[in-house]
């Protein structure tokens, strides 16, 4: 039987005492320390299967139980790793950075409160996209979600990791409006107007009075968010747009330079994502149906894929949301702009309220099928992503693509890339799909990832989000003025969490006592 992983300077006897204390506070049915429990909380898509093993997990079901768990963690100086539902699978899922940490699983906190008049939902972290979708259907509420490509996870967990969707509310972290947070020392605070007793405006005005803290608890280890308000998009009267295909890799430049201004101007308010041919092939087929050659797919195979699915080298779906009259006028502008850059295929789409709805990310429908791409190579699949932030500049995006594509070919990886628009930036998501049963190929992933980080760093591009393995590496790349931001983060960390118990290593932020664990 495998030994329980322990945090630095911890003993098995002390872990057993902590487990007993959790059982006394929460009940034995919320405390999980068997070997099978530990395995079930490991990183499902791990590149290094020996890393990030938790000691066990606990599942408090209320704020009071979270506070009790935090007090015990402080008493034993035992690290806790909060997860909402742990379904951010390409980033570590349920697993902690530091081996021996206890996972604080918030899956069982699933309350939903809805302010229908204002379109504000108050959620606990265990509420998944499917749960909220069900709630909206059940109560016939005229609001749409903003769902990510894998919607299995938590609504606020996704926004706390800066996940994205595809509607005008696609930058999910911007939809937060006030949180309730358990601090690392156990106190409970509410941010924004929530700090004002009985304020009916907690979910309406995000800033409150004085400093506004919501983003302080995003991608950080400064508190455990036990409740948050989020704004939902009112159901539009009309949804109109086009799916557009482009023939050549070089067309990326014109696509970015055409869509970017429309997005900044506000004619396009959603978050379009330009993607390449592998997205269709990897979801719908397996690689062995196309070729048995190792290395990156060659141009003959790429041509065959494109022919079968009738797609371009790049494709993008553009959607307009709102009043039908306004959408019709906007569509003319959109159509003219896109036609000018000579797409190989344009397929218009149109919906008005009352018509049958398309069940896709554009309508905020939760989905899981895009994760079928993990079966691309066969075997036990997985993926991680390298996702630098770029400006909305076509030449820059094209050069970044060309550098990255050359690396994919150098390392023998099939290229799955996308360029997702925010208001002023692009997120260039480069998915690395792998087969965990192919040891030789798995051995190349780490060097490949590090090469991409170094290439992007040389151009001034940093990642927006990363896997557990690379949190220190990416934090190190944010190096202006001697890494002043990291120093500030760690000063805040030590002030709020003197015993260093909350998610040590998250986003490269380490408490004083565990700074030696940093592994860039």
């Amino acid at each position, binding site marked *: 039987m495998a030994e329980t992983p322990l945090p630095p300077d911890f003993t098995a006897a002390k872990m057993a005492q902590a487990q007993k204390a959790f059982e006394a506070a929460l009940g034995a049915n919320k405390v999980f320390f068997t070997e099978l429990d530990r*395995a079930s909380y490991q990183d499902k898509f791990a590149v290094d299967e020996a890393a990030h093993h938790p000691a066990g997990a606990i599942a408090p079901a209320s704020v009071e139980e979270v506070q009790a768990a935090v007090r015990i963690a402080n008493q034993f100086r035992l690290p806790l790793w909060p997860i909402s539902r742990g379904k951010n699978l390409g980033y570590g899922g349920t697993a902690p950075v530091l081996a021996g940490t206890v996972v604080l699983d918030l899956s069982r906190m699933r309350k939903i409160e809805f302010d229908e008049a204002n379109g504000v939902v108050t959620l606990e972290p265990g509420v998944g996209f499917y749960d909220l979708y069900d709630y909206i259907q059940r109560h016939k509420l005229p609001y749409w979600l903003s769902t990510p490509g894998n919607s299995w996870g938590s609504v606020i967990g996704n926004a706390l990791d800066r996940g994205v969707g595809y509607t005008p509310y696609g930058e999910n972290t911007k939809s937060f409006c006030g949180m309730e947070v358990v601090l690392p020392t156990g106190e409970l605070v509410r941010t924004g107007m929530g700090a004002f007793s009985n304020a009916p405006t907690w979910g309406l005005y995000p800033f409150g009075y004085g400093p506004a803290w919501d983003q302080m608890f995003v991608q950080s280890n400064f508190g455990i968010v036990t409740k948050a308000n989020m704004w939902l998009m009112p159901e539009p009267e009309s949804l109109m747009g086009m799916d557009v295909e482009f023939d050549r890799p070089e067309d990326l430049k014109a696509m970015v330079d055409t869509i970017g201004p429309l997005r900044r101007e506000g004619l396009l308010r959603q978050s379009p994502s330009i*993607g390449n041919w592998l997205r269709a092939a990897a979801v*719908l087929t397996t690689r062995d149906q196309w070729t048995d050659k190792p290395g990156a797919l060659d141009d003959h195979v790429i041509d065959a894929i494109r022919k079968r699915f009738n797609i371009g080298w790049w494709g993008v779906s553009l959607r307009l949301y709102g009043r039908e009259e306004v959408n019709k006028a906007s569509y003319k502008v959109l159509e003219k702009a896109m036609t000018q850059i000579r797409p190989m295929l344009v397929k218009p789409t149109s919906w008005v309220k009352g018509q049958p709805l398309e069940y*896709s990310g554009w309508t905020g*429908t939760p989905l899981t099928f895009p994760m079928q791409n993990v079966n691309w190579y066969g075997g036990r699949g997985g993926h991680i992503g390298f996702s630098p932030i770029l400006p909305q500049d076509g030449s820059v995006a094209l050069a970044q693509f060309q550098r990255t594509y050359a690396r994919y070919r150098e390392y023998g990886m099939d290229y799955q890339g996308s360029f997702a628009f925010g208001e002023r930036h692009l997120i260039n998501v480069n998915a690395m799909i792998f087969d965990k049963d192919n040891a030789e190929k798995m051995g190349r992933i780490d060097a490949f990832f590090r090469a991409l980080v170094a290439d992007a760093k040389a151009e001034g591009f940093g990642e927006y989000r990363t896997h557990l393995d690379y949190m220190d590496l990416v934090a190190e790349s944010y190096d202006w003025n001697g890494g002043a931001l990291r120093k500030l983060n760690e000063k805040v960390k030590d002030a709020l969490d003197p015993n260093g118990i909350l998610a040590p290593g998250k986003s490269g932020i380490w408490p004083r006592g565990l700074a030696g664990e940093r592994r860039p």
Partner: protein
Amino acid sequence: MRGHRTTIAILSALALAGCAARAAEPQGQQAAAAPAQPAPPPGMPKPVTLVDRPNATGGEKLYVEHCAMCHAPGGMGSGLLGRRIDQPDLEKRDNLVAQYVILAARRGIGNMPAIPRGEVSDEDLQAIADYLAAGPHGGAK
């Protein structure tokens, strides 16, 4: 490739993943939609959630709540199982053994990640497994 119609449905829904939607053949319309709602257009089926099974109790209710997002038609699990076996819908299987269901969920199987006890308790997983072992069931009604 198995499940040609499903393939077309998924491809048409790939707009999400940045691929253009293709003309799709009409699907067998999913009975899952709430009665008042018009049938969805060709493409992906409506996700199955508890609102579609107002009378579900016990293991069925828990299955819809915890498993349907992947195992109902259009889900990842359904899609990948459809590549390997004739009946990818777990509720329609007549050969599932409760202990096997529990083992597959807790340890993960193929591309299905392990489901930890914080997410689905032992008691709830047993009820789900018993429900599936008692199949086949009518499915999305």
